[in-house]
């Protein structure tokens, strides 16, 4: 009897504690208008803590701490500032000040928005980046990262050439905006690391090729200069001999 009473009392205390914890969880997102996520239309959202998942009809976004996004009347998500993981099967696009980011098929993309640029990193699949002013999309494969800046006087956004993503910093940021299981994350992270390694190797091979070409061009230039110098010396010697012959001078 006493044992049962003890259990019931403990349960009551634990329930009270759980209610307190749930209440604190609700404040993880700031929404304007209030509770607008579940409705349609304009909605501004700010994540106060990491790993805040927002389910949208065409995919989902996971926001890092301090990240601000808003959804407009046309259900298009806009990244205002911070760090977001975009997961979609191809239909969801994320709009930002400098570029629109989407996917051709199923993919996971990390998007970081700063005051003067947006950085896109593909961790799975292949991203499509549409810089402002460009008519077509740029394909960004897994393991690659690129930066898109402000629109330049030519009417096109300042777009950086895609390059191998930096695994370490990207891993940390990705984890801060990953809402799934740890095991699944580690598996994806390993794939991403492999993709980064291959991108680095591809980049290295490209750079090696460029270096070889440069070295070859320098060698050619040096050989050409040597040949020109030799030809000039022979010409001068010929002229000196002719001069001595005409003036009946002896060879030195």
């Amino acid at each position: 009897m006493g044992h049962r009473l003890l259990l019931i009392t403990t349960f009551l205390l634990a329930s009270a504690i759980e209610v307190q914890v749930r209440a604190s969880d609700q404040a993880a997102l700031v929404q304007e208008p209030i509770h607008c996520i579940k409705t349609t239309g304009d909605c501004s959202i700010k994540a106060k803590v990491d790993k805040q998942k927002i389910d949208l009809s065409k995919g989902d976004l996971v926001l890092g701490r301090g990240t601000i996004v808003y959804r407009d009347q046309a259900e298009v998500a806009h990244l205002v500032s911070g760090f977001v993981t975009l997961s979609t099967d191809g239909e969801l696009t994320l709009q930002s000040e400098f570029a629109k980011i989407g996917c051709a098929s199923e993919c996971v993309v990390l998007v970081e928005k700063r005051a003067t640029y947006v950085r896109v990193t593909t961790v799975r699949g292949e991203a499509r980046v549409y810089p402002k002013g460009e008519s077509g999309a740029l394909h960004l494969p897994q393991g690659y990262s690129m930066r898109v800046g402000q629109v330049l006087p030519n009417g096109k956004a300042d777009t950086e050439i895609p390059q191998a993503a930096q695994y370490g910093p990207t891993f940390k940021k990705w984890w801060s905006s990953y809402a799934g299981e740890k095991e699944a994350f580690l598996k994806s992270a390993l794939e991403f690391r492999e993709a980064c390694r291959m991108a680095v190797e591809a980049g290295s091979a490209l750079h090696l090729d460029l270096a070889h070409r440069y070295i070859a061009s320098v060698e050619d230039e040096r050989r050409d200069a040597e040949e020109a110098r030799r030809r000039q010396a022979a010409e001068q010697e010929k002229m000196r001999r002719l001069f001595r012959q005409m003036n009946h001078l002896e060879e030195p």
Partner: protein
Amino acid sequence: MSRFAFLSFILALTVGFVQIYWHAKDQYSPVDSYQVEIKKLKEQVEREQLAFVTQAEAQREFRQDVAALMPEVLRGVTEKAIDYPRRNLASVVTSGRSDKLQEMMASTLFESGKSLFRSGDYERANKLFAKVIDRYGYVKQSIEAHFLMIEGQYQLGDLEGVSRSVAKMVELFPESELTGFALLRLGQVFEHKERYAEAVDLYRTVLRSFPYRSVASQAERNLRDMEP
């Protein structure tokens, strides 16, 4: 009493006390209600800040969209830059048909003014003459409109107006016979103001400068009238 029963009793008592404490605190302590109020206000501020940041971002995004469109717009500027002087010139240079229409309108206004002048309604007549001068200054009726307006001003006793209008007429139509008559009218204004020396000088100037008999004879008559 067993130990379990005792512990359970103590725990139940604790839970009961805690519940009573929280209930009493909610009921009687104002601190909690203030804290709730503060929390609500903080949340409101956060939401307002979020709305502001979102609006600012929408504006920045719009600015980038505009910047992306600018080169296309600027490409069209060259043609527009040519178009603008062309339109500007067209607004100044009017066709022959338009000139005739303007002359007709000026003539209608002037005739209406003259009719009012004859009937002695100088005030309304002067308004119409002023319109003719302002809107159609280059038409042939312009000199007459100036002269009749001076006459009207003289009749209305607006002597300052007469001085201003005569000065303008001398500047615009220095060789016109009507300008000579207007100067004679200014001489009379000087006489009214008892500025006789200036009036005499003016009549003599008219006599020297205007070769028209009618003007000269009138100037001589005015000079004779001034002799003691």
